[in-house]
């Protein structure tokens, strides 16, 4: 009983962090702050994965996003040094339309989510996925195993590395 209350509190905390900081990341004027708020959102997302007992996924999220992507963002923001976003009017027509579309979308999607009838699951499970199973699934070639996407992903990462170097190098 104590545990249930504590877990509920943790979930609501993570949900509040995600909601507040994702809104702040798109509304703040300073771009470096936007990147920091994005980092908080990604941390809370990793927290949600841990909460769902997908520890491997949470660890990947922390490493790839907090370790890689955010550093890329910070460096590119500092390299292009655009800490002064142009002063646009606070309430332009486009801003109102975007706000209307977003709030309408949230209302529509939440209505559909909360009124939909989901299929019944007979054996709900919150068990941790064993690491051995993850490794076998990632490296197997049978039905429901993912060796081919894994290799395609490695080719994609190589291509994007080469592309990044080619695009961003100094032409002398």
């Amino acid at each position, binding site marked *: 009983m104590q545990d249930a209350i504590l877990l509920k509190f943790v979930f609501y905390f993570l*949900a509040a962090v995600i909601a507040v900081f*994702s809104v702040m*990341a798109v509304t703040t004027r300073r771009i470096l702050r936007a990147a920091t708020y994005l980092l908080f*959102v990604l941390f809370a*997302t990793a927290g949600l994965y841990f909460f769902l007992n997908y520890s491997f996924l949470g660890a990947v999220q922390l490493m790839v*996003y907090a370790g890689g992507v955010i550093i890329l963002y910070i460096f590119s923001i500092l390299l292009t040094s655009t800490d002064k976003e142009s002063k646009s009017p606070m309430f332009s027509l486009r801003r109102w339309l*975007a706000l209307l579309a977003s709030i309408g979308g949230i209302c529509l999607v939440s209505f559909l989510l909360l009124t939909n009838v989901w299929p019944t699951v007979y054996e*709900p499970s919150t068990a941790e996925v064993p690491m051995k*199973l993850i490794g076998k699934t990632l490296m197997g070639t049978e039905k429901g195993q*993912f060796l081919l996407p894994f290799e395609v992903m490695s080719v994609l990462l190589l291509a994007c590395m080469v592309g990044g170097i080619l695009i961003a190098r100094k032409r002398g």
Partner: protein
Amino acid sequence: MEHIIPMEYYLVVSSIMFFAGIYGFITRKNLIAVLISVELVLTSTDINFAVFNRFLFPQHLEGMFFTLFSIGVSAAETAVAIAIIINIYRNIKSTEVRNLKNLKD
């Protein structure tokens, strides 16, 4: 074992994140800020994959691996997009969307 939090709560959280990303994508003026909004959208879909896998098909692993690959693809996308943005900055000394009349000068 039963779940403590119903599935819809997770999905509402991820839809808030998704539409915050949409709002930023429409209203932002800076290229990197647009990219940050795209990142929010991608991450919210990742949450959905993981949640559907955990709640509706707990005996399978497809959603979890889709999330894994989606994280990889979005990291690759970010790297290339940032290379392009740095190149644009080198050419026109600005990363504002309204200054981007043409990609080649």
